[in-house]
């Protein structure tokens, strides 16, 4: 009974909260409004540019928060060794919709441990939300280094990223015409997908420059940790993640999926570049979970809205009705009413005729 009344997303909020607390993340509560200026300056970081704005009494332009990350980075610590770990669940406002979001951010003087911990927490979050899940991992630094070494810039670079993002081999081939090196590298990134064993060495074989190799080594050590933690079957390396519209991401990027939900439910990565752009000397990693998508996977609770419907004509003694309702509530839900409700169905109907209960 208690389990039934939780909506998927409500249950998720509580299980995730306890997971993040266990790893030392503190709750973060942000105000509903932020100064519009913060979002305008970092518009590219936002998923949607439809921000709801209004002015306060003194004429300052405020926005209903479309995002949580920017507010956390704004207040990130900059001292050497200082790390701030927070989790949140907040409603954000995009395209005139209210979206329930949970997530965590780790900002400050991050080392490899913090990066690995955040990725592991992403996998663990997915595991709490469903039995079948996949986390796709990519590395923006690797993609950028490969594009650099191919000499792609401007429009071509954007097109190449777009092809990677859409697994669009045919247009990538046309784009790389004339450069066998670019085609070899980029088509390898495009077609490689799977476990570290299947992907890492194949990619390593086509790399030629130091920045490329360095980024790949970062992925390799992350993969080892995921493998040791027993997630090698749930995590795939896939370079279609984060190849488009994520130019504030610098290192590891990832996206999580649950079977039965038609879009990615978790999205995140390392976004040092955003912190730098906001004038912060710190590194940052985090992810968001779009809880409203869990409604898609909501199971139908029961075939009936109420278990027992008690229908009376208004003349029945209140004490009698109360006793009948209490008895019915013991093994299910009960609704006491004088008229048959049109928009609800029920399993059992108890009707009071002349003060007597008739089943």
């Amino acid at each position, binding site marked *: 009974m208690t389990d039934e009344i939780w909506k998927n997303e409500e249950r998720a909020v509580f299980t995730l909260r306890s997971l993040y607390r266990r790893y030392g993340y503190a709750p973060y509560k942000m105000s509903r409004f932020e100064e519009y200026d913060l979002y305008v300056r970092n518009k590219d970081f936002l998923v949607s540019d439809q921000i709801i704005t209004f002015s306060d009494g003194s004429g300052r332009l405020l926005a209903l928060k479309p995002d949580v990350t920017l507010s956390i980075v704004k207040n990130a610590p900059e001292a050497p060794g200082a790390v701030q770990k927070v989790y949140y669940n907040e409603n954000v406002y995009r395209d005139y919709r209210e979206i329930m979001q949970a997530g965590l951010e780790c900002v400050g003087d991050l080392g490899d441990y913090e990066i690995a911990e955040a990725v592991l927490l992403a996998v663990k979050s997915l595991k709490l939300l469903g039995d*079948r899940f*996949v986390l*796709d991992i990519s590395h923006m630094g690797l993609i950028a280094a490969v594009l650099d070494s191919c000499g792609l810039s401007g429009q071509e670079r954007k097109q190449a990223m777009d092809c990677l993002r*859409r*697994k*669009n*081999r*045919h*247009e990538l081939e046309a784009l790389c015409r004339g450069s066998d090196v670019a085609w070899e590298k980029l088509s390898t990134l495009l077609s490689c*997908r799977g476990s570290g064993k299947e992907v890492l060495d194949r990619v390593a074989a086509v790399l030629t420059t130091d920045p490329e190799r360095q980024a790949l080594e970062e992925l390799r050590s992350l993969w080892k940790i995921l493998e040791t933690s027993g997630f090698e079957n749930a995590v*795939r390396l896939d370079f*279609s993640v984060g190849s488009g519209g994520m130019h504030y991401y610098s290192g590891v990027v990832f996206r999580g*999926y649950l*079977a039965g*939900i*038609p*879009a*990615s439910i978790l999205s995140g990565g390392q976004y040092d570049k955003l912190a730098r752009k906001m004038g912060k000397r710190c590194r940052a990693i985090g992810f968001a979970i779009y809880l409203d998508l869990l409604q898609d996977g909501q199971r139908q609770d029961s075939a009936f809205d109420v278990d027992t419907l008690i229908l009376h004509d208004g003349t029945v003694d209140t004490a009698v009705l109360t006793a009948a309702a209490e008895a019915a509530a013991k093994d299910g839900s009960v609704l006491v009413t004088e008229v048959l409700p049109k928009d609800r169905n029920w399993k059992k109907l108890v009707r009071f005729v002349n003060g007597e209960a008739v089943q």
Partner: protein
Amino acid sequence: MKTMINVALPKGRLGEKAYAMLKQSGYDCPSIEDPGRKLIFENPEKGVRYFWVKPSDVAIYVERGAADLGIVGKDILLEYQPDVYELLDLKMGKCRMAVAGKKDFRDPAGQTLKVATKFPNITRNYYSGKCRDIDIIHLNGSIELAPILGLSHVIVDIVETGTTLKENNLMVYEEIVPISARLIANIASYQFKDDVINEICESLRKQVEEL
């Protein structure tokens, strides 16, 4: 239980050709070949389910996960920019997106160019790349009428053979992009059904290469 793959086919000749290729790949569905009013066709043995939808809706069915795979024209992908994987160019339904106008058309330099089209986003992107100021007139059909009646200077539309244009004294001035049919996949479905989707994709790729 066999994984079911849902495929959205565009109504019309393109969809029929695409189905023929899928059938060749071993994903046949006998009931689809019976004429009737059914909307969904299933072959549980092969683990495949087909449905016909309006060509411009295919991308929506796939993006939202009602279909795992779909066959759709590149024009629709460019116009609506759905978040899907574009796995294969099927090299059929070939045509081009082009700017056309009356035979005696001259670009009214110094004026806003009036463009009639079914594809406002493609049109906007194309002209903003050229920094040309335009006024988009969004029509749903019979685009060719617009320049003839003086509603617009030019049109941006799909040109297959060019016969309709010729018969109406219109001609192509600029080609924007070549168009053909593409195999698309829902990104989340791909995570869980990648083995089957890759198998279908590879088999279709072979057929395309043999053409």
